[in-house]
């Protein structure tokens, strides 16, 4: 049997650079060894097996892989949903209702898609906080940080565009609020509104199809690219924050342990997702009416903090100043590794939990304020 299998592998490896393809596939967190694509596939794999496997005894390291798995689940469930969703304002909610009511397992797939998205964002936020606390932005890991933050941003945008697609009342008005918030940021806001359908904060046919395109094609592509780049960096730099590879333990069956670890993780995640999908379903709501505002609807929860900030400063700051402050804060956050004081010195080892707690407290305060004002 092994002879036939190797026969097949050799047949392909004579025609394609399997090592390159294999390393592309494993760029999504399966294992972190760099493969020399000039080598034959068998040699490359043997070499990879001999490398140390990432260990998950420090549990926060699993966050990256979790994010990848969740993204994969989102892509699968999202593609399934796309078989039935019709992206025009007139047919959107009806098509979603068809999925929920008439399609077998439609409600199940839809709920998993929703909860998977929430878990993904939660995981990414925890991951970014962890980076902040462990100083995983210190040289030479600046790009790790930037990719991490950008990935979080891409997922925020994915959630935002995806939420608007069912065109129900709360979804519609939540998106309008978010668009208004984005539009209040000078330059960046105008560019975004322009891209999203002509600078208006009303969701028309054109806007909806742009949301759809972003959600279904452009943002997932961006996310996949970011993840690829990120793991490419991990392979170059190693997994730990100390900057050196882990002390090698052994090769051989260790990869199987590694794969088993991932299988167990995936199973637990699936359990959590399915439980949420069945026990905490979120309702669909009535169709959106652009002429009737649903009271008490604010932007999505992760945008409540900037929204709260704008509301708080509205009495004494003009909108464009508030928007600029938001923009500058965000840019500083993205370019954190390059800020003075973060490159070397005490802060390069990570922010103390006191500071992180303070930042989180400000964020939570603004979120609650934003929720109350919405």
């Amino acid at each position, binding site marked *: 049997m092994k002879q036939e299998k190797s026969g097949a592998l050799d047949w392909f490896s004579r025609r394609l650079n399997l090592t390159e393809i294999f390393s592309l596939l494993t760029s999504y967190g399966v294992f972190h060894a760099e493969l020399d694509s000039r080598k034959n596939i068998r040699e490359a794999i043997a070499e990879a097996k001999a490398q140390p496997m990432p260990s998950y005894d420090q549990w926060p390291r699993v966050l990256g892989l979790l994010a990848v798995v969740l993204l994969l689940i989102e892509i699968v469930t999202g593609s399934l949903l796309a078989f039935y969703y019709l992206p025009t304002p007139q047919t959107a909610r009806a098509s979603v209702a068809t999925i929920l009511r008439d399609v077998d397992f439609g409600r199940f797939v839809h709920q998993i898609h929703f909860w998977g998205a929430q878990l993904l964002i939660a995981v990414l936020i925890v991951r970014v906080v962890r980076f902040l606390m462990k100083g995983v932005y210190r040289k030479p890991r600046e790009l790790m940080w930037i990719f991490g933050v950008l990935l979080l941003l891409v997922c925020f945008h994915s959630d935002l565009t995806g939420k608007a697609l069912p065109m129900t009342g709360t979804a519609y008005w939540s998106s309008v609020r978010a668009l208004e918030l984005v539009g209040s940021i000078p330059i960046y806001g105008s560019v975004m509104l322009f891209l999203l359908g002509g600078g208006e904060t009303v969701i028309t046919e054109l806007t909806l199809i742009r949301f759809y395109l972003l959600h279904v094609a452009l943002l997932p592509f961006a996310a996949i690219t970011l993840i690829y780049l990120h793991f490419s960096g991990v392979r170059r730099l190693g997994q730990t924050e100390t900057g050196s590879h882990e002390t090698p333990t052994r090769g051989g069956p260790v990869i199987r342990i590694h794969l088993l670890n991932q299988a*167990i993780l995936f*199973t637990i995640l699936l359990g959590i997702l*399915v439980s949420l999908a*069945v026990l905490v379903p979120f309702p669909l709501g*009535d169709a959106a009416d652009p002429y009737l505002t649903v009271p008490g609807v604010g932007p999505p929860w992760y945008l409540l903090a900037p929204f709260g900030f704008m509301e708080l400063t509205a009495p004494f700051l003009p909108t464009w100043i508030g928007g600029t402050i938001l923009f500058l804060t965000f840019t500083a956050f993205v370019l954190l590794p390059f800020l003075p004081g973060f490159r070397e010195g005490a802060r390069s080892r990570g922010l103390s939990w006191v500071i992180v707690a303070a930042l989180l407290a400000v964020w939570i305060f603004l979120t609650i304020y934003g929720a109350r004002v919405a």
Partner: protein
Amino acid sequence: MRPPRRAQLTDGLIAGLIGALWTLASVPVSAQEMCGTCHPENRVSFEQSIHHLENVSCSDCHGGDPAAREVKAAHQRDFRSLSDRLEVPQMCASCHADLDQMRAYNLPVDQYAVYLTSQHGKALAAGETRAAICTDCHGGHDIRRPRDPSSSTHPRHIPETCGQCHGNEALMQEFGLDPSVVTDYRSSIHGRMLLEEGSLAAPNCTSCHGVHGATPPGVGDIDKVCGACHEQTRRAFLEGPHYEGMTAASVPECASCHSNHAIQQFGIERVESLCAECHGEGSDQAVLGHKIHALIDSAGEEVAAAEALVHRADQAALEVEDPLSRVEEAKTYLTEALPAVHAVSLEPVEQLTRRAQSIAEEVEHELYSKLDRRVAKIGLVLFWFYLLMTIAVLVIFRRRLRSETEAS
């Protein structure tokens, strides 16, 4: 010198022509033409009327010579000014009670006879000149069909027309009549429907009091008047003890609870305290009132809860057409329950409320089980069972491999 013969002829012709034209000019197109010379306002308002349209002339009512252009000549012969109110009804009846004349217009001919039986007619016959006569309600010269929206006898204008006298406090007090009937009516549900919403389905004064035979309905007849529209209520009322009792005690039936002119829309809350108002707090009747109220109230709550649940299910994208139509059915039963209350007995009300309640409970049960998703939850338990077994298997494998690699 005598004019030449040809000139005589021309003169004669011209004179003749002028004379002919004069004669022609002096013959009026219709009899009204001349009366209007001295009475222009009357002529103008008469031209708007239905009588003018049907070629009734001034002299048909007033007599005299319509062609005359001077007072004495016009007001001669059988001229009647009709300023004496006692004359007017008979005058109108001279045409309107004549079947041969009215047949062409398909108008009834009993108005005068009926009028004589009315309070107004009787008072007039007794010499009371302030009693209403034909022209008081229909107008004198500007009479229009009741169908005409600008007519004073159009349903929407009737309260105003009757109110000319019946809304005059001093006048009504003199006669010992209720001066507030018009204001009461305007504040009532009937008045608001007619005057504010413009609904012609609402009753006006004549709907209950009659038109030419205007008389307040007597005790024992009031329920017939109200029951002309509120049929279900009347049927239920006749079955109950109130009808006989109230008639025997000479107490007005509907008006005792609902008042006669200031009728308001009663909701179910009124039922709770209404019985005690006559029968006293704590009486058997008051207790019955509480029970009836409780029946309808609880059924109403149940139906409202079912409706809210249907809305929730609709939001969760469940199929709601069937439950929705059943909720409508239940609401219909509840709407029928209020008239049924007038039978002042538990049974007819209970029949309706029980049906409404059972429908509501059925709908709730069905939707709860769908919203609850019991099947999905059982599936979830099984799923977790399978999941935990899988994790156990994987963990065992892992331990196996670990110890294998430790061994090597």
